[in-house]
């Protein structure tokens, strides 16, 4: 009986992988949220407006280049920790033909390279926004 139960657990548990929820950002506690003060409107001189289609293309590229759940490996140097941070990069996009958006994720200068200049710290993607997929990564 016990062996049968164990066997069914072994068969059923891997199936849980199929029911993973898509990533959602965590929300702060109600107490922390209550402390946030929103402006009356977003300031005209400092606001940035981007079409969500473009942001989606950028998001897909960034999720491929540096997934949000990536943590620096054990023993990473300061520079490597810096390279693991999304904030160390900038994202550039340009429309391409037939619904393709080209997106480049590239290391910001003078952020991580205090001592050594690193070559080729970037990736350029062709993104199919409607299909929510990466078409190609440039080599």
């Amino acid at each position, binding site marked *: 009986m016990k062996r049968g139960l164990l066997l069914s657990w072994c068969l059923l548990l891997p199936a849980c992988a199929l029911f993973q929820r898509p990533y959602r950002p965590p929300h702060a506690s109600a107490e922390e949220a209550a402390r946030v003060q929103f402006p009356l409107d977003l300031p005209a001189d400092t606001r940035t407006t981007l079409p969500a289609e473009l942001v989606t293309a950028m998001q897909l590229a960034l999720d491929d280049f540096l997934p949000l759940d990536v943590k620096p490996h054990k023993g990473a140097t300061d520079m490597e920790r810096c390279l693991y941070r999304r904030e160390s990069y900038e994202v550039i996009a340009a429309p391409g033909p037939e619904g393709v958006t080209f997106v480049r994720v590239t290391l910001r200068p003078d952020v991580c390279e205090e001592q050594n200049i690193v070559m*080729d710290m970037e990736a350029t993607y062709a993104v199919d926004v409607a299909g929510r997929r990466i078409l190609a990564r440039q080599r």
Partner: protein
Amino acid sequence: MGARMRRRFTGAFVGLGLAAACASVPSGPVEGADYGYRNGDVWVRGPWELITPSTDVDEVIDQLCPAIMRLPRAQGREYGQEYCGAIYSLGDGTYYASLPSTLGPLLKATPEPLKACFAPRSVNDPRGRTVVLADYHSHSWPNSRMSSADRRESRQRFSIRIQFDTGCRVMKLVPYAGESRPGELFERREGSWVRIGIIKPEHKAAGIVTWMDG
């Protein structure tokens, strides 16, 4: 000839073939002896014995790609290894190539293995003080051009940057960093440099190329 004898001959032939194949792939430069860190800065050793020095720097450049492409994983595509080195002189009008370095950041947790190397800061040559003219680096892919990141003005340490891919398409960037004249991008074609683009002064920070027609 008996079946056993034939098998022995075949075995010996395969063995010799494998030995020859292994012998044709150099083991590559060694950290500590050929390159390393000094106070955090990357140094490389020179001169590289495989590259014949010349008073014509282009003769040195032309030898680099074939030599690098024989090193381990230099053509390994997604599992490849980028190599970074330098071209320098001792102030006597002769140009030398340094050995290449494999040092670079390791981002083990990222989904795509990273292929990046550190541009060396200095060359160690026991004969004297070195003046670096150019850095060079390889890509482990065919048809792979100098990246926009590598064309940015803030990443230029020397007067020239050389990059080549596994097909030995060689590119040369003359950044003219800090100068008002535009940067220039060349490709080596049949023994001469063809200017394929310029980087306007206002585009130097981002490394944006204005490509030549044709």
